[in-house]
């Protein structure tokens, strides 16, 4: 019965169906299973408690560090602390003595989120800074406990980082969202096609997205490095060159320009690396 051949391959073969199987079989799935990253959360709450306990311990350690830094600066500070945003004349003088104006890079959530869950990073980019004690303005908290601290450094350093409050989640939700957006960007870029000069692909959307993600990536990478989160720091470091390259492409790049970046994306398996992070990030919490 020919009807049976379509249903379960039994009976007399239908030549049209056989032909279709032969033609379409070239598209059949062949890929191997991906590696299993980590075990998913079980249905009971044991892993959640562990994650919460780890987060609390980390919060206590960071809080103790922040208090000890503040205590130290209070003892050593020569200037009175500013009250509610009032600038003191001495602070203005001190600001004038800085070798270069500090660059302030704030995360997108920093100024808007209530409740103190924000990190603000202040970096100086001065390579010409003299190798001597330097004072630099540190992160300024923007909530109702507005304060300004002065940290005196004995070594000349390029970047001075201070954290006000740190949102402790184990896996930072901002990093997770950022990584997911980066995956989308890289996939979208891989899909863009420029087969010839006449039909060069328009990647203005990818460029714009890449630029936004690049600033975010820099901020997140520095946050991670500051809190000693080396794996996240390295992951974001590995992502950054792709964001830079895509952001710097012309709006309608040539096929060769795009191919070079696509090949690197494939070769370094950056998308898979980001995917693994996303999976791991979701597991401890749920």
């Amino acid at each position, binding site marked *: 019965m020919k009807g049976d051949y*379509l249903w*379960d391959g039994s009976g007399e073969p239908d030549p049209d169906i056989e032909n279709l199987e032969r033609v379409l079989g070239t598209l059949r799935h062949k890929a191997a299973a991906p590696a299993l990253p980590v075990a998913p959360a079980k249905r009971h709450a044991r892993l959640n408690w562990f994650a919460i306990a780890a987060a609390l311990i980390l919060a206590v350690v960071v809080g103790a560090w922040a208090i000890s830094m503040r205590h130290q600066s209070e003892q050593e500070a020569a200037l009175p602390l500013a009250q509610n945003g009032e600038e003191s004349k001495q602070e203005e003088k001190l600001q004038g003595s800085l070798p270069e104006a500090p660059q302030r890079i704030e995360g997108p959530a920093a100024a808007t989120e209530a409740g103190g869950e924000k990190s603000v990073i202040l970096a100086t980019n001065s390579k010409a800074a003299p190798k001597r004690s330097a004072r630099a303005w540190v992160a300024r908290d923007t909530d109702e406990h507005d304060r300004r601290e002065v940290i005196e450094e004995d070594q000349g350093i390029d970047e001075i980082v201070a954290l006000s409050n740190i949102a402790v989640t184990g896996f930072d939700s901002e990093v997770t969202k950022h990584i997911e957006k980066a995956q989308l960007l890289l996939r979208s870029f891989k899909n863009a096609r420029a087969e010839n000069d006449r039909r060069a692909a328009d990647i203005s959307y*990818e460029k714009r997205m890449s630029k936004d993600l690049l600033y975010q990536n820099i901020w997140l990478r520095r946050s991670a490095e500051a809190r000693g989160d080396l794996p996240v720091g390295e992951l974001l470091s590995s992502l950054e060159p792709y964001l830079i390259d895509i952001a710097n492409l012309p709006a309608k790049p040539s096929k060769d320009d795009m191919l070079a970046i696509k090949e690197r994306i494939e070769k370094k398996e950056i998308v898979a690396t980001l995917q693994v992070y996303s999976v791991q990030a979701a597991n401890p919490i749920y």
Partner: protein
Amino acid sequence: MSGELTLVIPQTESLLAQPVNEVSEGASLIEAVRGGDQEAFGRLYTLYAPMVHGILLARVPWRDVDDLVQDVFLTAFRRLNTLRDDNAFGGWIAMIARNRAMDYHRRAREVEELNENIPLASQSEAEAEAAKVLEVIRELPEAYRETLILRLVEGMTGPEIAERTGLTPTSVRVNLHRGMKLLREKLGMEEVS
């Protein structure tokens, strides 16, 4: 005339969408995967990847399907603790695959559409021919499209399609036959009576 009566019992299809032994194997694999068993995950992948691949192939460009298959499985793995009934894994991961396909189209930016039917230098003749037929199948109604791809591309039988997707065998049989009839018309094949 003899008083003998012959009782004729019509053959009916099993009402079960899934044989019991396959259901048990799937459920035990899922439990093992939850425990981090890589081999169990590999086995689960072997069982369900063709179905996921076929569902995605019915909806997104075939060159991107392999990446998305991996994505679907990693997503399913991540959300495994939300699966209430391990026996419903097939239908559940099929839903994830369809949602993923929708996300793909939602997020893909508008470009000059490079129709898969346009032969590319890197495309073999076999691939080009397959892509053309696939385009025709994609024009069919969704229910037929998916079932036909699972049968003709992935090489799954009707019972396997029913078992993996959670559809009843009757639904699958109807989709296959009606879908095949439409496909013959579109491809200009003569219908086999």
